[in-house]
């Protein structure tokens, strides 16, 4: 049985002299290079002259590319050429784009900074709108906020606090350096409020102010 199958193969080999080893290696090299997909040994041989040994050529080619900028790699049962993984950085071009933080993100960040540690529910209550997951994620990713200790209230909700990266970016030594409400007003940032002393239209202001004064320092006493 063995003899029967081997005989014609031998014959074929002698009839069509296979190209020399180096030539076969070149062929495999060119085919792997030009192919859009990894190529199987079978496909390689189908395209090469009769009598070629693609597997053998691949072994030699792979050795030749060892340590080079390009490697011969096996992908499933096919072969391909790929750039060396340590040179991946050359295949990327980094561009940094600076963009202003969205208004929602800034407000959320401000609430966390002024009220930390603060839960998501508290942020929502203060902003009056729900806070999207993306906004929190963005601030976490930027490392401007991080998770604080859980609140000792039902459900033990997580809290958010600002990070040293945040303080660094805003040039603050501590969150306590953030201007208080009074200073904000003096800076004209709260100018929508009636001037102090005038007849107040909203009578909740006094208490709020108190809260601010007493609440604020406590918040930052970790």
């Amino acid at each position, binding site marked *: 049985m063995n003899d029967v199958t081997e005989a014609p193969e031998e014959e074929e080999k002698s009839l069509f002299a296979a190209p020399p080893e180096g030539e076969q290696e070149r062929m495999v090299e*060119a085919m792997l*290079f*030009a*192919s*859009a*997909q990894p190529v199987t040994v079978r496909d390689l041989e189908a395209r090469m002259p009769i009598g070629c040994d693609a597997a053998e050529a691949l072994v030699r080619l792979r050795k030749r590319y060892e340590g080079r900028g390009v490697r011969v790699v096996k992908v499933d049962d096919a072969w*391909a050429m*790929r*750039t060396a993984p340590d040179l991946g950085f050359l*295949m*990327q*071009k*980094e*561009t*940094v*784009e*600076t*963009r*202003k*933080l969205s*208004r929602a*993100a*800034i*407000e959320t*960040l*401000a*609430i966390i*900074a*002024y009220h930390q540690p603060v839960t998501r529910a508290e942020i929502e209550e*203060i*902003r*009056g709108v729900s806070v999207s997951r993306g906004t929190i994620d*963005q601030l976490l990713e*930027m490392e401007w906020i991080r998770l604080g200790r859980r609140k000792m209230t039902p459900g033990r909700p997580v809290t958010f606090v600002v990070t040293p990266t945040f303080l660094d*970016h*805003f*040039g*603050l030594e501590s969150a306590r350096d*953030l*201007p208080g*409400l009074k200073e*904000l007003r003096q*800076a004209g*940032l*709260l100018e*929508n*409020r009636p001037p102090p002393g005038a*007849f107040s*239209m*909203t*009578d909740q202001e006094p208490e709020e102010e108190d809260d601010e004064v007493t609440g604020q320092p406590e918040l930052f006493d970790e």
Partner: protein
Amino acid sequence: MGDDNFQEDTISVADRLAAEALIVDVEGYEGPLDLLLTLSRTQKVDLRKISVLELARQYLAFVEKAKALRIELAADYLVMAAWLAFLKSRLLLPPDPSEEGPSGEDLAAHLAFQLERLQAMREVAARLMARDRLGRDVFARGQGEDVMRIRTVRFTATLLDLMQGYARIRTRDEFRPFVMDRDSVFTMEQALERMRGLIGFAGDWTEIAAWLPDGWDSDPVRRRSATAATFAASLELVKQGQLEIRQSATFAPIEVRKRQ
């Protein structure tokens, strides 16, 4: 002249065959120059040594035949024929010193140059197309790993942004549609209701100011509103015949009492 006859004889058969082929296929030629180039091949000589006179004859013969066969020739073929006829006459006649313009030889040389140049361009075009070409003989990387552009977006904010953001939240409550603030307004309805309840106790003349509700007499704004409302309510009650009202002098206190 004899020379010309000789040339005509030697190529007449080939010429005739070529001309016939041309007539059948005149559409296949890209204009007169292309046709001239094809005709010139029948001379089987280097283009630089071509006989322009002979070429002119061949061309004119071609045009004549085409006319005889009623083949409509494009205008540029006829323009070329006219020009070649002119060239032929120049080449055949001895140069006239009184005549202006280029000599027949100059014109012939230029035509030969044009033919040679066109021929040269065709040859190099063929050489160019026969080169190892990308995508046919030579191949580029099949699976290009193009440079990946990593766009990092860095978000920034300033301390002012932060403060303004916080201020915006803390003052948001005041941003609301404009409505008359009722807090310091005492309406006539409120005054009427109040006075109807109290009217039974007003047997004697009482100053209107005494009718003001509690907490509305210290603040000037509130006092003004309450006073106006109470006065208007009093007038209403007078109209209804339940109350009497009087003022002793201008700016004197206004007094009311239950109608007796």
